[in-house]
């Protein structure tokens, strides 16, 4: 095979990768707190040596996490929280603190607020939040202050990475930050709501069709190339 086939091959393997990203987005269209993932293709240039022309290959090597606000669905749960605007909840896992937008929490057997995987939710000071066992109705103000019978007992902390590029994904709708994190100045948290996945099904489906057709185009190009080489061999070998 020559370069034409290899260039097409990079395109096709990139599209295959993108299809996987779309499938992952669609599979998580019902996951609360999920943020859409996008793949960005870039040109990979190999400089030509001497009189050879340079070749550029397509590489899907960077990704983008969508920051769009997801729709807020009303659930009515006292410990269901949705972030409006920027920021992430901070939870404590065995591997260190992680960020998440999924705001479905519940007190555990010890009375500490945990998410559905059992990771503790951290307050503005980085400590676990303890819900008093004799607390009646729990109310939360828009800045994340939790109170029971008019007495505030904790404030849910919202943080964001100092550099958004350092944000990478972990399983369980969690994000890992390699750099510094800083508190959000004016946090807005709504009680009794959950942020739905910010995946837009129409966009994903449109992109899926595009990817599929582009893949088929690549396949046809490979076909033609194969035919061309066959013709060359037949003509020259005569």
């Amino acid at each position, binding site marked *: 095979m020559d370069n034409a086939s290899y260039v097409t091959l990079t395109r096709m393997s990139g599209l*295959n*990768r993108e*299809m*996987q990203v*779309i*499938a*992952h987005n*669609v*599979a*998580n*269209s*019902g*996951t*609360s707190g*999920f943020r859409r*993932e996008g*793949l960005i293709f*870039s040109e*990979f*240039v*190999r*400089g030509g040596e001497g009189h050879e022309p340079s070749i550029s290959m397509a590489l*899907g*090597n*960077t*990704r983008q996490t969508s920051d769009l606000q997801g729709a807020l669905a009303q659930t*009515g*749960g006292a410990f269901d929280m949705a972030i409006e605007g920027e920021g992430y909840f901070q939870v404590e896992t065995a591997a260190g603190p992680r960020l998440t937008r999924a705001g*479905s929490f*519940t007190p*555990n*057997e*010890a*009375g500490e607020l945990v998410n*559905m995987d059992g990771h503790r939710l951290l307050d503005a000071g980085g400590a676990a939040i303890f*819900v*008093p*066992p*004799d*607390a*009646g109705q729990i109310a939360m103000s828009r800045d994340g202050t939790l109170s029971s019978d008019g007495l505030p007992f904790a404030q849910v902390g919202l943080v964001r990475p100092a550099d958004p*590029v350092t944000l*990478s*994904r*972990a*399983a*369980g*709708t969690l994000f890992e930050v390699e750099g510094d994190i800083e508190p959000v100045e004016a946090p807005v948290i709504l009680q009794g709501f959950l942020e739905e996945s910010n995946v837009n099904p129409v966009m*994903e*489906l449109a992109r*899926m*069709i595009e*990817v*599929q057709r582009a*893949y*088929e185009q690549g*396949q046809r190009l*490979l*076909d033609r190339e*194969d035919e061309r080489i066959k013709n060359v061999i037949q003509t020259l070998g005569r």
Partner: protein
Amino acid sequence: MKSLHIAATGMSAQQMRVDTIANNLANMSTTGYNARRADFADLHYQQFARAGAISAQDGTVLPTGVQLGLGVRPSSVSMQVEQGASGYTGGDLDLAIEGRGFLEVVLPDGQPAYTRDGALHRTGDGLIVNAEGFEVVPGITIPDDARALSINAEGEVYAYFAGQVEPQLLGQISLVGFSNEKGLEAMGSNLFLESAASGPPVVGAPGTDGLGTLRQGYLEESSVDAVREMTDLIKAQRGYELNSKIITAADQMLAATTQVR
């Protein structure tokens, strides 16, 4: 083609959501039933290109790298602890709990179980039991000759007798609270069992320690919100279809691959 498997995890997640909705709608008129909700979380990520890897001959560094997700998994099906509406029945042994808390009953094997279903009955001997016939703690017996029964908000059971002006106190029904009610293990028949996640039961009189109060003559209706279930059903069904479209597209891409010769 991983897309096939990823879309399959999406389909099974939506299937589970429909199952949960079906169970909620089936229990629309179950006394003391709390709606369940299926929550999901994304699966693990494959690292394809690490952030910071060199991407070109001139030393360009990747700012973000590529992480490819592998689909979705159910993270929990949790009970939505919500107060259901109180429906008037007029029965003297019908109790609605207003606020937090559960009634405690004793299973035939002696183990405690907890319920919000306050449709109580009496046995031939006058013992107060739940609809399944399990004794309600603390085991109050109503005398045969009691003319009427009154249960106040604090759970005190009074009996009126012919010829007596003052009612007689028979006992006090207690309530049980848990730090994590969602962690209770449902065993069917409106009953729950203590689990490691729920925390130990805290017994108290109704109206104390954040526990709710009792209301005689009412039953707590199911807290299932039909409108919410129907909108969720639409979302789940469309989500299922979307995932099946991905499977079709991935399949056609595979077919295109085999056509390359």
